[in-house]
């Protein structure tokens, strides 16, 4: 076995914080090597150090047996190591071929030869990836854009490709396709370093897996025969099995609370949806099935026709009034839609409720402070400073701040869109407890998640969603994940055939 990359004592510090402490790892050539760990465990950092994107504060690295001193993106590329970032680094207005050969354009006396398309055809033939060379990048799906990044690495004759969370915005079919590509790369003798927080994906594709915890190496071992439980216990440190969901408290009788009738427009078509007092209703759908659009339509973020009733009374169709009436949505994307990262925790939490924290337009800061303090304690946000800099918090704690923001003032009905996306196991558990407690206190919850398991574990009732409509009601206590996946894909292909 030849060793592609060998790192000894890799340490990375950002300011005073050590995010990676003296990690030793060897990546075998011609393998798929997974890096996993909770959020903040350092898996992404290790990937970026190996790919030359971050500079190590200490440690040595050798590449295919040769020790390297300078290790930045150009020298990494020169050694055949490329990195594919989570946020793809493509120029959206250029064509596929132009992006693939950016910086490698062939020219005569500085004048482009404009032969990228032909060169790309040749490259695609050898790699088995296929795309239209002249398509404009911005028009392609994320999955196809990733193929561009992979082709770009291949055009630079990369022998090692670091992929940082490549599947976070892919549908299941696209994930499977990416995995096939990775296997093909490996079979050609290339090396793939696969950074992800999806344990299933690791178990499905990887030959070797390295687990990190709190910036330290736990262990590296062969992935054959491992179970999710093995990985989780490595990640968490104890022998904790996969986290159980809080017990479902079923309301004794369903008292009507919230009703949606004939919602139509903005990609949504929902004839009827009800949520009772203390009830958690789940919505399950594939990526792009219109889950988020339904959430936005319900709270009035997008203009749609139809009725939204709370206690039989119509809720005004603008967000400020809906919030005041007790109907709120926790958006899925905390960075772009949820929090204002330039502001501290306190103004973030009170932003939708300014009227309640002010008198004739002047903020009542004492009251605001104490309420924020209470919210921070309720959701166990760390660090616990009232005016902490939320942009520096971990993903899990940012998500808790986001929950605190929208659960401020005890809303009656809460629409949760992907409440535990991209958070670590500990935060996920805390968020699940908060959701269960919310329902137990009498609020209605509409839970939207791409993690079927999460919906099944928390919801009392659930619907399958496709093309912005509810297509089937299921009983979460009886249904299993595989069945639901099949049902969703079956429905999708049915629709495609009739369309």
């Amino acid at each position, binding site marked *: 076995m030849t060793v592609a990359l060998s790192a000894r004592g890799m340490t990375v510090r950002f300011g005073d914080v050590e995010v990676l402490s003296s990690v030793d790892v060897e990546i075998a050539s011609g393998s798929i090597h997974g890096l996993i760990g909770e959020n903040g465990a350092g898996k992404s950092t290790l990937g970026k150090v190996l790919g030359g994107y971050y500079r190590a504060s200490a440690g040595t690295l050798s590449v295919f047996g040769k020790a390297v001193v300078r290790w930045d993106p150009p020298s990494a590329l020169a050694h055949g190591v490329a990195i594919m970032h989570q946020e793809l680094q493509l120029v959206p207005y250029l064509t596929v071929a132009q992006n693939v050969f950016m910086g490698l354009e062939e020219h005569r006396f500085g004048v482009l030869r404009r032969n990228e398309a032909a060169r790309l055809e040749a490259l695609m033939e050898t790699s088995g990836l296929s795309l239209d060379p002249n398509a404009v990048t911005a028009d392609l799906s994320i999955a196809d854009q990733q193929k561009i990044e992979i082709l770009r690495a291949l055009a630079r004759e990369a022998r090692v490709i670091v992929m940082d969370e490549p599947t976070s915005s892919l549908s299941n079919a696209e994930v499977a396709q990416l995995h096939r590509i990775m296997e093909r790369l490996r079979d050609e003798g290339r090396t793939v370093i696969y950074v992800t927080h999806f344990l299933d994906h690791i178990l499905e594709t990887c030959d070797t897996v390295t687990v990190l915890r709190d910036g330290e190496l736990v262990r590296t071992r062969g992935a054959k025969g491992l179970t999710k439980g093995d990985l989780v216990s490595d990640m968490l440190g104890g022998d904790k099995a996969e986290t159980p969901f809080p017990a479902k408290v079923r309301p004794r009788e369903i008292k009507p609370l919230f009703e949606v009738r004939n919602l139509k427009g903005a990609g949504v078509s929902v004839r009827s949806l009800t949520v009772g007092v203390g009830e958690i209703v789940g919505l399950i759908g594939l990526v792009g099935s219109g889950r988020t659009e339904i959430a936005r339509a319900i709270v009035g973020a997008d203009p749609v026709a139809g009725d939204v009733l709370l206690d039989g009374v119509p809720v005004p169709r603008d967000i400020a009034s809906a919030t005041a009436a007790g109907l709120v949505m926790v958006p899925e994307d905390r960075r772009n*839609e949820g*929090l*204002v*990262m*330039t*502001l501290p925790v306190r103004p973030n939490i009170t*932003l939708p409720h300014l*009227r309640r924290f002010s008198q004739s*337009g002047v903020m009542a800061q004492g009251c605001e402070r104490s309420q924020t303090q209470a919210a921070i304690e309720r959701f166990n946000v760390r660090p616990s400073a009232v005016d902490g800099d939320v*942009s520096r918090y971990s993903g899990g704690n940012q998500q808790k701040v986001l929950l605190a923001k929208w659960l401020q003032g005890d809303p009656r009905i809460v629409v949760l869109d992907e409440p535990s996306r991209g958070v670590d196991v500990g935060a996920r558990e805390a968020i699940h407890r908060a959701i269960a407690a919310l329902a137990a206190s009498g609020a209605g919850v509409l839970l939207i998640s791409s993690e079927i398991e999460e919906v099944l574990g928390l919801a009392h009732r659930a619907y399958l969603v496709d093309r912005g409509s509810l297509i089937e009601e299921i009983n979460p206590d009886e249904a299993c994940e595989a069945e639901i996946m099949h049902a969703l894909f079956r429905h999708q292909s049915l629709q495609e055939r009739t369309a």
Partner: protein
Amino acid sequence: MIQAQIFRFAQSYAVLVLIVALMVVLALLSDSFLTGRNLLNILNQNAPLAIMAAAMTLVIIAGGFDLSVGAIFAMGSVSSAWIAVTVDPYLGLFLAPFIGLAFGIINGIAITRLNVHSFLATIATSLIFKGIAVVISDGRLISARIDEFIWLGRGRFLGVFNSIWIMVIFALLLTFLLTRTTFGRRVFSVGGNEEAAILSGIRTDRIKVATFAIAGFAAGLASIITTSRVALGQASAGQGMELQAIAAVILGGTSIYGGQGAVWRSLAGVFLLALINNGFNILNADPFFRDLTTGLVILAAIGVSAIGQTRR
């Protein structure tokens, strides 16, 4: 650890550090610098720019730019003098800020309705406003040497120039607005993350219009101070002041990307620029180097505050 803290402090208060350093140097080099008279004069001369920079802070925090305040200033100059001469001096002084307010609202509506970047919209409106000022003044200077008009720019109250009082009160008012009111919160959230603000039920378009209205009002207010001081309305007044105001805001450390900043920072920025100018005057230094020096100081201040922020 301590070094890092000192550096962070220097970063967030770079403009104050520079002011203190410059004042020490000037005080050592010249006896006439650190006198009440000189310092009051600096403040008096720069009060109009300071008023405009204070309001520009709100526009920039909300994620916008206003390149038309110089033109609104010209409009205020011409209209206040014209009204003073033809109707009533007090009415001229009173109306100009509200004309500025109206023009600011026009800016805001153009930006939010047409959904164009404020940079583009205000370039266009500045030409329009300037054009109106030229038409009103017929291309001539409007002399308004009337006691009831010039008292504002030349007079004092309790020994301090009226302009300084106006500047201080206006800056305090905006500071209160920005830090203590729901409106201020909304301004920060619009510039920090507009999508999150919209989903929090904030009518972000209204907030943007309000910031441009305030900037317009400030330009009108600044113009009456200058116009009454020189007793002259002219369509060429205020030329380049929009860029000076923006430079002062950025120099003070307010983020050009919106969402962060403070009014006092912009006043400090204005004062720093003024000190450089004043230094050249009292030291009799070669004025050919004035622009060069000012540019270098701005670049240095921006550089210091940018270090370490690239990763965020």
